[in-house]
């Protein structure tokens, strides 16, 4: 059995990619610092997972051929396995060369993370010549598995992946699962399946086997669209009844959730909420109106500082010590005004200049809050401390009890989502859509583009200001360092990864990114990532832009673009609505994002 040149080149390419990713993961220090966290006891640590995940993927990709319409796919067979194995082997060899170099020469002077411990980890605690065998062999096996994946029937393959995903999720999110088990009085089970924060291997196997028989359908956007279709095909009366029922269910769920989660997880979720509010606001500016605002954090800062000055007794110059409830509308108003002030000059600029100028404004505002000049008012680097929480009846809601703050976060998120949704589906939303698609024509069709853009800026500013007000009450203090450019960038990543222009997408983005990886100053569920969070954010941003610019859950219009219009037509002609037939998933079609 020989390989064609094309296959050989592809194999080489993917083995080099996989090898370099592994070397990078090791050299940048991820491998070593993640090794402390076991995820499946006692066999798999997070470090090894981060190191090796690329290999089976590369093995799979190396023999993957895109399905073309009208062309018989070439037969699958041993060649897939062989190519996978070769890919893994190549990657393993690259890693082994790295290990030898790292062992021979002391590179720590330059590469701080290449330590003897890293070498030991990469050789599986064995001495060098023998250990290298494992360094090469394990990637080879993983690559083989990746290649062999093609031989499985579609359905079985999908089920395997799903089961594997679930096992990893349950293992990685040990904190959440154990906490929930504790809250529902199943401590015993939790203690049984987790050891040292890792899933016991037998529990992993059991879970895997339990999930395997569940039929997996195509995941992703198709699924979302199908559910949507089903929702819209039922008659209105039923729909209202359904929505009432689901609203009640959601409400009950939201009320119970903080109690179920306990304070640690509530804290994480409250942070998710804060970023989600800002994400929804930025989504209006970027996703709907099409303006890339890189200084969005400025409005967050303005909201937080307004509340701080108005409520704190330690506000240096002016301390009216108002109630949070009175300070909130003022904060929203001040944010809106700053939206007008920043928005008015930048709105007529070209898109990329707008991005840089808003970035400039964001930095100016932060530096001013930090400066000695304004420190008599805003406290400079020391910030403003002692912000009382939110008075509510006899109690005070503040960050000390994350559960109660979480309720406020929920309320704010619901309001923000409602604002986004209702604006999107209104006259102004259509105008944003139009000017994003073609500004000249929108103007010629009577849309006052300056006004519409300014509206978007203001609404975005108000939402961020609200998030800021909540943030100040939650933290009890504000410092300029909470409002770095990084915050703007991370909100942007949340919006882009989730899916620009789509509320559900932004929500998913916030939960996944802020909840798991963590925000700029707040840890997520995986506190281990803290050091590498921004590296991962950067990589995600690049990856999404290159591969899936429409985001994980694309906006409906964008989805429609990629899928069958004919199906719609036929359905209408037949006077009966069929669910849209599944088509190749959108990731295979290149989407044109409309920004």
């Amino acid at each position, binding site marked *: 059995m020989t390989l064609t040149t094309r296959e050989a080149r592809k194999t080489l390419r993917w083995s080099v990619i996989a090898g370099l990713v592994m070397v990078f993961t090791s050299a940048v220090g991820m491998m070593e610092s993640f090794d402390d966290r076991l995820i499946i006891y006692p066999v798999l640590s997070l470090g090894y997972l981060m190191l090796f995940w690329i290999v089976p993927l590369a093995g799979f990709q190396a023999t993957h051929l895109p399905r073309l319409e009208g062309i018989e796919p070439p037969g699958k067979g041993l060649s897939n396995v062989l190519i996978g194995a070769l890919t893994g082997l190549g990657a393993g060899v690259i890693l082994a060369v790295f290990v030898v170099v790292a062992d021979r020469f002391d590179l720590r002077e330059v590469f701080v993370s290449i330590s003897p411990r890293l070498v030991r980890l990469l050789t599986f605690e064995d001495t060098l010549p023998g250990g290298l065998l494992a360094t090469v062999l394990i990637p080879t096996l993983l690559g083989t598995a990746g290649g062999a994946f093609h031989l499985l029937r579609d359905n079985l393959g999908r089920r395997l992946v799903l089961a594997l995903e679930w096992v990893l999720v349950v293992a990685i999110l040990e904190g959440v699962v154990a906490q929930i088990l504790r809250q529902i009085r199943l401590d015993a089970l939790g203690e049984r399946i987790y050891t040292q924060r890792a899933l016991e291997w037998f529990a992993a196997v059991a879970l895997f086997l339990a999930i395997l028989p569940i039929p997996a359908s195509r995941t992703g956007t198709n699924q979302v669209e199908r559910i949507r279709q089903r929702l819209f095909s039922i008659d209105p009366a039923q729909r209202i009844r359904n929505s009432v029922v689901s609203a009640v269910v959601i409400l009950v769920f939201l009320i119970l959730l903080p109690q179920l989660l306990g304070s640690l997880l509530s804290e994480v979720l409250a942070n998710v909420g804060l970023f989600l509010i800002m994400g929804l606001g930025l989504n209006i500016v970027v996703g709907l109106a099409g303006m890339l605002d890189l200084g969005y954090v400025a409005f967050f800062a303005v909201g937080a500082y307004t509340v701080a000055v108005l409520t704190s007794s330690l506000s240096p110059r002016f301390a009216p010590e108002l109630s949070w409830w009175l300070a909130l509308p003022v904060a929203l108003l001040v944010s809106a005004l700053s939206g007008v002030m920043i928005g008015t000059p930048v709105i007529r600029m070209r898109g990329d200049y707008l991005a840089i100028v808003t970035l400039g404004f964001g930095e100016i505002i932060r530096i001013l809050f930090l400066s000695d000049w304004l420190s008599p008012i805003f406290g400079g680097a020391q910030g403003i401390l002692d912000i009382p929480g939110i008075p509510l009846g006899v109690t005070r809601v503040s960050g000390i009890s994350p559960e109660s703050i979480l309720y406020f976060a929920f309320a704010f998120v619901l309001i923000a989502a*409602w*604002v986004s949704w*209702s*604006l999107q589906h*209104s*006259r*102004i*939303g*259509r*105008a944003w*859509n*139009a000017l994003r*698609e*073609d500004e*000249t*024509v*929108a*103007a*010629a*069709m*009577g*849309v*006052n*583009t*300056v006004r519409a853009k300014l*509206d978007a800026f*203001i*609404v975005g500013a108000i939402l961020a200001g609200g998030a800021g007000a909540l943030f100040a009450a939650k933290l009890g203090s504000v410092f300029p360092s909470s409002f770095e450019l990084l915050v703007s960038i991370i909100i942007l990543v949340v919006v882009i990864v989730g899916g620009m222009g789509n509320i559900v997408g932004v929500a998913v983005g916030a939960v996944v990114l802020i909840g798991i990886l963590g925000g700029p100053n707040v840890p997520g569920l995986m506190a281990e990532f803290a050091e590498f969070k921004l590296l991962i954010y950067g990589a995600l941003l690049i990856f999404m832009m290159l591969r899936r610019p429409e985001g994980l859950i694309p906006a409906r*219009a*964008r989805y*429609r*673009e990629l899928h069958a*219009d004919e199906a*719609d*037509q036929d*359905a*209408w*002609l037949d006077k009966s609505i069929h669910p849209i037939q599944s088509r190749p998933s959108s990731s295979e079609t290149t989407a044109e994002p*409309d920004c």
Partner: protein
Amino acid sequence: MALLEIRDLHLSFGGLQALAGVDFEVNENEIVSVIGPNGAGKTSLFNAITGLYRPDQGDIVFGGHSLMGLEPSEITRAGIARTFQNVRLFPNMTVLENVMVAQHCRTHSGPFRAVLRTPSMRREEAHIEAVAKEILAFFGSRLVGYRFDQPAHSLSYANRRRLEMARAMATQPRLILLDEPVAGMNPNETGELARLIHRLRDHLGLTVVVVEHDMGVVREVSDRVVVLDHGIRIAEGTFEEVAATDEVIEAYLGQPATPT
């Protein structure tokens, strides 16, 4: 008094003189064609009228008010709508949304009312949708039914042209500017469009200015024809009159017509 008066309009890009003192008038309820060889300044004229270009000199008066210095959206609100030579729809919005968005300047609900979903806002939304459907029905069965919810880019070329006209109509104009409405259409569709232009005036009471290269259509629809060349008006009159003018023949053929 004329509905639209163009007075001594000058427009230049760098050294290139696109309009060099154009004068003409359009009366209420009239169909006027603007013709001329390529580069004569016809589209520049449209862009100047709709505020996309700023003229250097001269005046544009619409319904007794000068349009100089107004934003494009204000001009649309004043009652002038247009289509584009190279069909510019909002391709990812649906057919219905394309027409609904054009009613922007005739409606009022701002963000505040949208968020509160006030009854007046809901009434307005329903009204916008009804008007949009009514306008689309003007084009027969082509843009209705399942097509309402299709993205505009999925339409056929001729339907896109129709949708663009529907969108222009939705701004509720008094004057509509059509930039080469039949370019790229087959004879059947061309004939239909010519009838449609008549219907715009006869049924909707609109005044129409058409830039067109298809002389058949020009002959069929125009009450009056204005000929531009090198940014100035070289002839004006009925189709037959201008077709017989020496300057026009010269402009099109590039040489003086020799008298026989």
